[in-house]
């Protein structure tokens, strides 16, 4: 069975809610019913058939040929199978994902991986603000799974993250790991101001000392940590880094002592 492909006919003129176009959302729908799903979010209310040419049958392997920054909610609630987009997407990609793979070959808007509990998201371009973060009113951000951003993330990456792993390979904006509850945030490249701002627990892993860290973080020296070796090997096995990042005895900053203070920022000792 060939994969289900949504080929973009033309750039949409309104924001699209693509949250229904997942293996679960499309189960037991025939081609006609799929084409009739309303995805447009304005009064135009475009349907799938208006925007995409649909081909293929295998709903466990969905491909969007062509992307657009108006594509919101791609892979929402994905609980198995794969969704791939060959271009950019908008907000809330992979929101509340539980399992499976979401691959975005372009960039994503804000709140990618928000409330995610499992599975993997791989973003080849940039990620917007609040990567893995909670929507307004939610108590926790990402709650499991793995997000890899091959380029840069915006501000508040890993905001209120509770579990799982986020790796950003080409730098992040301000406040990465803000208000983290737990989990692991890896950022290679420059990070903006105050990484780990008000983090309670969790680990922020950097490849260089933070330029501007909060005064409520304290230096905890560079003790030997078996965990550093374990994490390095995990990151290599996942294809996130090619060689060990932290080494056996990384520098450790403990904080944020303005709150609970059980979090950490680790970076290689020079």
């Amino acid at each position, binding site marked *: 069975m060939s994969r289900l492909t949504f080929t973009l006919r033309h750039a949409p003129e309104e924001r699209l809610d693509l949250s229904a176009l997942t293996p679960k959302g499309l189960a037991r729908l025939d081609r006609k019913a799929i084409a009739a799903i309303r995805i447009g979010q304005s009064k135009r209310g475009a349907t799938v058939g208006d925007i995409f040419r649909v081909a293929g049958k295998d709903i466990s392997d969905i491909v969007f040929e062509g992307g657009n920054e108006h594509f919101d909610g791609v892979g929402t609630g994905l609980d198995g199978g794969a969704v791939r987009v060959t271009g950019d997407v908008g907000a809330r990609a992979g929101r509340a994902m539980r399992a499976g793979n979401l691959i975005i070959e372009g960039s994503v808007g804000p709140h990618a991986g928000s409330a995610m509990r499992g599975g993997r998201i791989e973003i080849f371009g940039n990620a917007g603000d609040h990567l893995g973060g909670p929507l307004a009113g939610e108590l926790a951000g990402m709650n499991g799974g793995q997000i890899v951003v091959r380029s840069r993330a915006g501000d508040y990456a890993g905001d209120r993250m509770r579990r799982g792993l986020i790796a950003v390979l080409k730098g992040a904006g301000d406040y990465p790991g803000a208000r983290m509850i737990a989990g692991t945030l890896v950022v290679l490249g420059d990070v903006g101001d105050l990484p780990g701002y008000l983090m309670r627990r969790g680990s922020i892993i950097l490849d260089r000392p933070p330029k501007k860290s909060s005064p409520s973080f304290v230096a905890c020296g560079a*003790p*030997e940590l*078996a965990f550093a*070796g*374990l994490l390095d*090997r995990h990151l290599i096995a996942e294809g996130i880094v090619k060689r*060990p990042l932290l080494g056996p005895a990384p520098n450790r900053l403990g904080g944020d002592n303005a709150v609970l203070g059980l979090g950490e920022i680790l970076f290689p000792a020079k």
Partner: protein
Amino acid sequence: MRPLKVNGVVIDDTFAEAFGMRATAIIVTAPNRKWARQAAISMTGFATSVIACGCEAAIDVELPPAATPDGRPGVRVMLFSVSTDELQKQLVNRVGQCVLTSPGSACYAGLSGPTELKLGGALRYFGDGWQISKKLGGKHYWRVPVMDGEFLIEATTGMTKEAVGGGNLLLLADSSAKALLAAEAAVEAMDKVHGAIMPFPGGIVRSGSKVGGKYKGMVASTNNAFAPTLRGVSKSELGPDINAVLEIVIDGETSDAVAAAMKAGIAAVTALGPEKGAKRISAGNYGGKLGKFHYHLKALLP
């Protein structure tokens, strides 16, 4: 009937009788091989027999850095016991007192299985609230702050109910030195078998036992049939030319591991020959009624 001989070593037409056990395994790592071994040796001390130690434990294999979860030298340790509860208790006590305390150590699951035993899940409380929970790649770890940094320990390890305890070989020689040489050769060969341990000192037992005894309350007593000094006073299994018997007891993750270890041991002893080592190889059993697993020596010849 002529006795079966391999390279001049007589192989008794008998079998080793072994029992089903519960087993678990952990991987202990340290900054170097010396300290990985030290932690493992400490935790497997006084773990020769379930008769009085609570469990039987030993190093299974040494692992090179590339084969351990954190990229440091390590060893795989196996523990065997008769019940899940006792195995759990022994595991936590031994890791808590001997691995947690050993410099630079870390501890990971060495077995995956449907049943799990608590490892870090029980020892994390040593962290007194400063312990850190980490989930990576579907595994759960605890990081416990200690004086030289951190003790990293996986939350659980697996347990198998398919394990076998009590596989054995009896090596009969005309002198203690030859018996020891044969036993050492056997243990060296058996060490190479993965998933099998020889829990006695250096893998060797000199005080093989029988079930019960004449004194009330004795669970086990001396194996008089194989004790050379008792040849004249009790029913003996020993010929006039035998002056020393040493036993090797094998516990295996599976029945196949026990058989493979016994086979490797027999091959090593027969290769040594009767002049340098053992004249005869036998095995201990209880008539075949007590243990579920029987290992016939004839079937394990090299």
